[in-house]
């Protein structure tokens, strides 16, 4: 994978450092009561959006899910506005109205975050259709989970995207579980990627915890999409370290399974590889990490210093013009 420049590798690392530390801070903030929200930790899955986003432009768009805080951050959603949102503050990306399941930041292409399983895909098609109509070569990424591959919207969306040759990447983060249900207990086929054949679409299963593999798959899919050759389904194998929703009981998982997966944490692995292969020095990486830590601290301060929205905001943004009721 000699095609990846050191700059790109470091930009991926930078995103991963931001994502990993951000998740740690969010969990800590929930445990301490500073944040009150249902939180779907993405810890362990950082490689996927970090690598994909490093290949995306500002005018590329994404639709993601409740677990997709990392997708939004990796795409460029400002950390401070994100923290303010999760703190329910008026300075949040969504004025505090959306919360963790509905992060939106159009300037950086974060168009929709949805809490309804499967619903990122149909809307991603529309964003991609818009790009096509505008004559742009922008692409759209639809992020979703393995469990979402079992819902009707998945089928309808992949079929339509293939028929219309839409510039979409369907990125399934297969973390082996949907809530408490094992992948094999919910899905009759042994790989989501294989479903792509049912839509005459390329489908590829990759190690979503491996930057190089992820990069190769994403780069190819993005090139295809930009060239007008249509969508790709990428199944990125990964694992969520903190269960479905932070704080829940993960007794449904094998003890050994979780420990083993966490021992293979992709973050230190990639970090060590960067150093071992001579792409960056320990000092350089530590500096990047420190920078990200500082960004997050600043974001937390920004959030905590911000006001809550006034109660009157309940009735604004329902329509463009407030209705007399």
């Amino acid at each position, binding site marked *: 994978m000699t095609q990846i420049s050191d700059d790109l590798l470091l930009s991926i690392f930078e995103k991963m450092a931001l994502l990993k530390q951000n998740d740690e801070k969010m969990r800590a903030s929930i445990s301490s009561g500073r944040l009150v929200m249902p939180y779907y930790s993405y810890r362990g899955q950082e490689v996927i959006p970090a690598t994909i986003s490093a290949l995306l432009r500002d005018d590329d768009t994404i*639709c993601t899910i409740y677990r997709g805080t990392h997708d939004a951050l990796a795409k460029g959603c400002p950390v401070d506005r994100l923290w303010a949102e999760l703190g329910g503050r008026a300075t*949040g*990306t*969504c*004025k*505090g*109205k*959306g919360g963790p399941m*509905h992060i*939106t*930041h*159009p300037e950086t292409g974060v*168009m*929709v975050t*949805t809490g*309804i399983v499967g*619903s990122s*895909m*149909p*809307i*991603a*098609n*529309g*964003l*991609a*259709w*818009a*790009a*096509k*109509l*505008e004559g742009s070569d922008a692409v*759209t990424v639809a992020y979703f989970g393995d469990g979402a591959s079992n819902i*009707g*919207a998945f089928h*309808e*969306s992949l*079929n*339509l995207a293939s*028929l*219309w040759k839409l510039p979409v990447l369907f990125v399934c983060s297969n973390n082996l579980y949907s809530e408490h249900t094992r992948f094999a207990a919910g899905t009759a086929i042994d790989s989501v990627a294989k479903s792509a054949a049912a839509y005459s679409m390329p489908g590829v299963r990759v190690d979503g915890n491996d930057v190089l593999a992820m990069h190769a798959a994403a780069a190819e899919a993005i090139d295809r999409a930009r060239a007008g050759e249509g969508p790709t389904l990428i199944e990125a194998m990964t694992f969520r370290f903190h269960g479905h929703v932070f704080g829940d009981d993960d007794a449904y998982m094998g003890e050994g399974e979780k420990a083993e997966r966490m021992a293979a944490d992709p973050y230190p692995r990639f970090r060590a590889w960067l150093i071992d292969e001579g792409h960056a020095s320990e000092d350089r990486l530590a500096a990047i990490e420190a920078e990200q830590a500082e960004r997050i601290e600043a974001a937390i301060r920004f959030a905590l210093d911000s006001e809550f929205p006034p109660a009157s905001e309940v009735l*604004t*943004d*329902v*329509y*463009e013009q407030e*209705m*007399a*009721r």
Partner: protein
Amino acid sequence: MSQVTFVQSINQALHDAMEDDARVLVLGEDVGDAEGGGVVGITKGLSQAFGCERVKSTPISEQAIMGAAIGAALKGFRPVAEIMLMNFTTVASDMIVNHAAKLRFMSGGQTSVPLVVRTMTGAGVSNGGQHSDYLEAWYAHTAGLKVVLPSTPADAYGLMRACIDDPDPCIFVETLPALFNKGEAPVRGSRVPLGKAAVLREGRDVSVIGYGRIIQSVAQLADRLAGEGVSMEVIDLRTVSPFDKEAVLASVRKTGAAVVVHEAVREFGVGSEISSLIHEEAFAALRAPVRRIGAKFAPVPFSKPLETASLPSLDEVEAAVRELAAVTA
């Protein structure tokens, strides 16, 4: 004045809107000319005129249709998505209710979804239980949506143009059994403002408030009863949500009595909202409680006599009006 059908006026509205604004798109099952320009021809000629990129026939995939419309709308396009019959909106209601209706709010106003859902429905043509329901009460109960239901071809034109202009998602309900009925032709480019009722007949004794096909019949009833000295005011809401409270209340304050009528099932229907509001805001003016008339609380039956019996009848309206007119303060 020349006469046109609903099919013609809605087709014209779509045509004119696409001509006036390159962001207007049309999508849905069979909407392209290669597929006949829609099952009843409402989208005929559009793909020929504006090309198959702006007028897209789709697979039978209502969630994908609505998703494509929402995504394009988020980027500033103005898609008009057809969900062939209103009962089929049930397979796409996640997209409509959880997404189209809420994205503006949940994004704190950063995004908007200026789309129109075109859909047909209505009992009376023997389509049976799964093809005839009026579900406007559901969508009216959903904050973020607007719901219109025109009763004349000209209003259909003007409301469609207004819906396409509108920055928020609108559900445009077409009355299937009336689509080939004729009425005055619309003026090109005209708009009927959303949320504004039309006073079809002015009167003194009883207000009848409704929308859709039946309110036009009620207007004819008013003409007939006028001859007998019963003076009806007839209000066509045109927009169900937000509906024109001022027009409704002004009329009821004048007449002191009201009947609300629609073809949807009566119970938990739009009429309940209107009736409640009238009582809340004009209680002192009322000589008698507001009457609600709607379809029977049952699925729509196939057999003709049953189908007819399930629908609200003009006789019921007449009886209610006569009773109310007879009540003195």
